């Protein structure tokens, strides 16, 4: 028996009656799934409700339920025909999440989000400022600001539409790892919003693999006149815990060992690391994998004197050679 507190159970009991009332003959298992509890817990809840009612507690005063097979129907609700209004935290988590969706590039139609937000705020409140009227608002204590440069709105809308309608797409896409813009035909699978950026997960026909495309790097998108047909064995990724997880190069990619000066320690927070050893002087020795040598060289050149290459030798040599070429271009070589 779970040691569940009344603070979790009472709101569930009060919601359960109107929820069942709106679904006569609903399977007990479906109700249990809706409320995120086991069937036996749901049966205990029904048993409790069945003993409750209005003062007098005569046959016509008690909550009445009927059971048929594995289904349940509310026969008499004793006055609980509507759910309790949203609590402060409930209204605020929905409102904050809706605002975050409205801010996130390309995830959903912003207009629909704004309309939903207005209706939720109106229905949950009792005054002009519904969220602050709630006794214990999350309101104001949680906020989400995406802070991203907006991408190309028209391309985003085209991508969103293609995902919803399962159409293939031709993308003009900026690849940050190759620092180049290219065309690719893809079979969209899913949109994913991670850490404030939106990604299209799609089968890339050229790479013959599932790839992630960050929406603000889609410069143009054109819906192709054919359905999206990712191969049957194309697998969606686990939704990663954070964007770092999306960027992580595969096992088996080359490893670089670096020493990061204190000013360059952000690199270890920004990119996925194999391991990080902090030293007493504030620097850190790290090992990180990289997909593309040219990308790694760009990172090193940018870091200048705040990074040392510890391994491999060819990376150090490439870096120095590129730097000398660049100095020559400035006429100071």
């Amino acid at each position: 028996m779970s040691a569940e507190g009344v603070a979790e159970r009472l709101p569930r009991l009060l919601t359960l009656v109107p929820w069942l009332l709106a679904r006569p003959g609903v399977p007990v298992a479906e109700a249990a799934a809706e409320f995120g509890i086991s069937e036996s817990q749901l049966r205990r809840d029904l048993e409790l409700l069945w003993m409750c009612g209005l003062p007098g507690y005569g046959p016509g005063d008690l909550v009445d339920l009927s059971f048929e097979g594995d289904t349940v129907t509310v026969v008499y609700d004793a006055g609980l025909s509507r759910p309790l209004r949203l609590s402060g935290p409930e209204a605020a988590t929905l409102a904050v999440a809706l605002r975050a969706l409205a801010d996130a590039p390309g995830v959903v139609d912003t207009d629909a989000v704004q309309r939903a937000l207005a209706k939720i705020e109106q229905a949950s409140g009792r005054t002009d400022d519904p969220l602050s009227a709630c006794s214990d608002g999350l309101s104001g204590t949680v906020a989400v600001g995406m802070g991203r440069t907006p991408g190309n709105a028209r391309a985003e809308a085209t991508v969103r539409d293609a995902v919803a309608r399962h159409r293939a797409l031709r993308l003009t896409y900026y690849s940050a790892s190759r620092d180049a813009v290219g065309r690719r035909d893809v079979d969209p699978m899913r949109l994913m919003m991670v850490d404030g950026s939106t990604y299209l997960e799609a089968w890339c026909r050229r790479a013959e693999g599932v790839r992630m495309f960050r929406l603000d790097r889609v410069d143009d998108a054109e819906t192709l006149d054919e359905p999206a047909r990712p191969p049957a064995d194309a697998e969606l990724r686990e939704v990663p815990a954070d964007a770092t997880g999306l960027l992580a190069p595969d096992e088996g990619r080359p490893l670089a060992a670096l020493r990061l000066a204190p000013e360059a320690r952000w690199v270890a927070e920004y990119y996925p690391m194999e391991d990080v050893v902090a030293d007493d002087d504030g620097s850190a020795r790290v090992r990180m994998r990289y997909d593309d040598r040219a990308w790694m060289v760009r990172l090193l050149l940018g870091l200048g004197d705040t990074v040392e290459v510890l391994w491999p030798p060819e990376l150090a040599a490439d870096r120095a050679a590129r730097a000398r070429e660049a100095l020559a271009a400035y006429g100071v070589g």
Partner: protein
Amino acid sequence: MSNTRSSGARTLWGVPAAPTARAERLVNLVLALLSTRQFLTAERIRTTVAGYEEAATDDAFYRMLERDKAELRELGVPLETGKQSIFDTVDGYRIARGDYELAPIDLAPDEATAVALAARLWDSPQLAGAARTAVTKLRAAGVEVDPTAASEVQPRVRTTEPAFAPLLAAARAGRAVRFAHRGHPAAPARERTVEPWGVVSYRGRWYLVGHDRDRDDVRCFRISRIEGEVATVGPRGAVTRPDGVDLVDLVARSAGPPPPSGTARVRLVPGRAAGLRRAGRPDPQGDPDVVELDLARLESLARWIAGHGPDAVVLEPPELRDAVIAALRASADAPATLSEAHR
């Protein structure tokens, strides 16, 4: 009073009921107070609402009722207190149905999809739980929000930092907090005492915003740089957020890029440095291989340009050009510290 069911005479599945006395009593209290337009006095509740007869003494009964009232208020049940007439000497209680019930709400299909997505946004158990019970309430009110709607979209706001939950709880309770925080990944952790105003997700990272008591100023703290336990300091309700504070704006100003202070001109090798080309504006003088870029933070723009080596050459301003050349010299002259040990 006869309560044949709770007397144990019947059970639905022949299994003994769980120890549910308090939950059962509270449901009965809600039903009784919802069904009355008159204020019910404590005495009347005691004699008519099932469950309260179990209180052996007056003291026990009043304690029980006080706890129950507090519980209902905590859950957001709008409990009204008042007297029936001016001749009454004691307060009674009732629940106004209009305040209790979720107001009618009618969501269009695309709005319902937005709500379903919003409810899936949170990965913190606390926030996800509140969002889920909100959706269940909407569904109980007959609003068809399909929790699996738009399954081709996976929204997520990550809240995995261990300090997140205690900071959120403290901000909601209006309670000051004390914790160790690194201003920079290489900086030593320092103890801070902060009056928390709220937590903000900005560019995928969580920040605590509040009044730093030691520095007597508004500060934003990146939550992932908080180490160890978050301790609460002082009583609940001691922290009040000044009116008109915009938390996201405070974080954006502290953690986001500053407004541009100038313009840089950079020459790009044709077909190379696509990222700089995308971020830049075409050259007003019409040179197809020159772009103009906003100059906000000199060091970060210098880093970005230096990364491109000979493919991107700064034309102006001179201080940016010097910063890039300095970075390139460091790379060209980097000491050979290679060692097999790091393989």
